């Protein structure tokens, strides 16, 4: 088991370097002259330009900048924005709400996705199954921001059940609608995956053996069908956490949430490479950690993997 985890960890190291390098390179290629932005609206003298460049290491070659940056990450120094604010502070303000949002979305998609998926899988071909399938297709087909708008309009504005925007009131009720919107597409995938898995496992040989022992329908369902069917679903959910956090840009935009997505977006538009790279690096780390956790979960749920 330890060897398995160790091997996965080893595989993730080049991924970490590769992903951060890629993002760094992309951002590096972003247009805009940060020095000009720092200098303000007035023109800059050569000396002033040189000073700013030296301060922010902008005069060094790309690779050196990248390595310096990495060194910073490992010492938890995420650099500063061009307005002098430590990026770490910006993160401290933005991440918590996005994490809350992502976790709520995850809970929503897991709970409803699995329940509906199980019912659809058991009663394959029935009315519930067909309805649920169509519903899931629609959720995937309609862009999330459209769903967001519509829900915001109906639930927030028209019927006034939930707050229309979040802003600084990052409460559970306020985040409820955004969480549903964020988790909508994943909910559809969880539902379909569960349905497929359950329907396949119902026909498995070992389920027949279980029934032949004289186990009741409920026991067969819980101990054999569900237990095995949820393995691929659990791994999907684990990997989804990272994806949710990275993909929250749209939802945060619609509901005015000051989270990771909004911050990154602003930073890109304004040309603040340090912020963009730092945030993305953290997201990559979250993704890697989430993947490792998923591998762990998988090994716990499926004993065959432990000895691989």
């Amino acid at each position, binding site marked *: 088991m330890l060897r398995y985890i160790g091997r996965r960890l080893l595989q*993730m190291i080049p991924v970490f370097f590769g992903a951060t390098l*890629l993002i760094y390179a992309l951002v590096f290629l972003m247009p805009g002259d940060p020095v000009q932005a720092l200098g303000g609206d007035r023109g800059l003298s050569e000396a002033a330009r040189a000073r700013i460049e030296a301060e922010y290491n902008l005069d060094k070659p790309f690779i050196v900048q990248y390595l310096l940056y990495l060194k910073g990450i490992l010492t938890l120094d995420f650099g500063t924005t061009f307005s002098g604010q430590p990026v770490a502070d910006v993160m401290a303000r933005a991440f918590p709400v996005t994490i809350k949002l992502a976790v709520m979305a995850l809970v929503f998609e897991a709970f409803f996705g699995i329940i509906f998926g199980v019912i659809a899988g058991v009663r394959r071909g029935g009315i519930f199954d067909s309805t649920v399938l169509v519903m899931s*297709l629609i959720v*995937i087909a*309609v*862009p999330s921001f459209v769903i967001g*708008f519509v829900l915001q*309009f109906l639930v927030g504005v028209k019927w006034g059940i939930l707050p229309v925007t979040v802003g600084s009131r990052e409460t559970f009720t306020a985040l409820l609608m955004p969480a549903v919107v964020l988790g909508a597409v994943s909910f559809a995938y969880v539902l379909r995956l569960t349905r497929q898995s359950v329907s396949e496992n119902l026909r498995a040989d070992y389920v027949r053996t279980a029934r032949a022992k004289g186990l009741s329908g409920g026991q067969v369902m819980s101990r054999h069908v569900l237990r095995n069917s949820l393995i691929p679903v659990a791994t999907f959910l684990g990997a989804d956490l990272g994806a949710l956090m990275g993909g929250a840009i749209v939802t945060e935009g619609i509901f005015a949430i000051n989270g990771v997505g909004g911050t990154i977006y602003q930073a*890109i538009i304004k040309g603040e490479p340090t912020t963009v790279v730092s945030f993305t690096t953290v*997201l990559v780390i979250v993704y890697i950690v989430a993947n490792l956790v998923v591998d762990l979960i998988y090994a716990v749920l499926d004993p065959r993997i432990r000895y691989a």
Partner: protein
Amino acid sequence: MPDINRNVANPAGEDDILAESKLQLRPGQDHYIAETDETGLGAVDAVADESAPSSMWGEAWRNLRRRPLFWVSALLILVAVLMSLFPQLFTSIDPRACTLSNSLADPQPGHPFGFDRQGCDIYARTIYGARASVAVGILTTALVVLIGTAIGALAGFFGGILDTLLSRLTDIFFAIPLVLAAIVVMQMFKDYRTILTVVLVLGLFGWTNIARITRGAVMSVKNEEYVTAARALGASRMKILSSHIMPNAAAPIIVYATVALGTFIVAEATLSFLGIGLPPTIVSWGGDISAAQASLRTKPMVLFYPAMALALTVLSFIMLGDVVRDALDPKARKR
């Protein structure tokens, strides 16, 4: 019964069985022989010659033909493609002929969907908007299939170091959220936003799923006995890859690509919503939906039409993918 010399020992129960058969047989267990005509003995293993030959694709097609969902999605796709190629067939109004005085006006004769904020005819814009979305969908999928299948096939077929390298490469691209990378790159191309740049961006970061699926499919086909048989015949590796492995690995790729096409159309709309997709000079559903935000409370229909068009088009591709997957499902095929 002749008494035979045997070199091997008699199994234990034989004598008892012999003894028992001499006893009276119990009710329900006497020696029963069925009437010959009752049981219809045929020749062993005859070939059924009446039906027409059918390959896996042939069978899949027959299966597909019978599903109403296939025809519905095929029809919708056909309409969408027609709209994108020949918008003039559907409307004679110029989508860019906008007069501000018509801003947010209600539907009139000749203008069934009304007007948007800029005073443009919504119906015309809905028709002309198909081109951008369908083009992005198809081109991106083509690009993604090209890159992804190449990487996945090489990784899966050759294994070893090549597999490790390519798999890590796939992991790296996987680790970066698509929308994020798209925003960054589109920002780079701020002044060059066209359909092709959007396709490039989405394609460059969207190939990872296809690569994984291809790799998995190739690895499982690689172990099939007909591949070993081809080797025994003397076929070279490249020949095996091209004539045996790729055709057999195609099914899951095709299914995924069809669904992916739909998701790419949605992705383009999302980029437009964020303001970094196609420029306003190109008529697109995403752009129109984005622009309709502001009038949502007063005139929700401005949002509704492009959103509906988009959703239906995407839905048709995803439904097609679902239906094709069911038709190609090996468990549903005979034998």
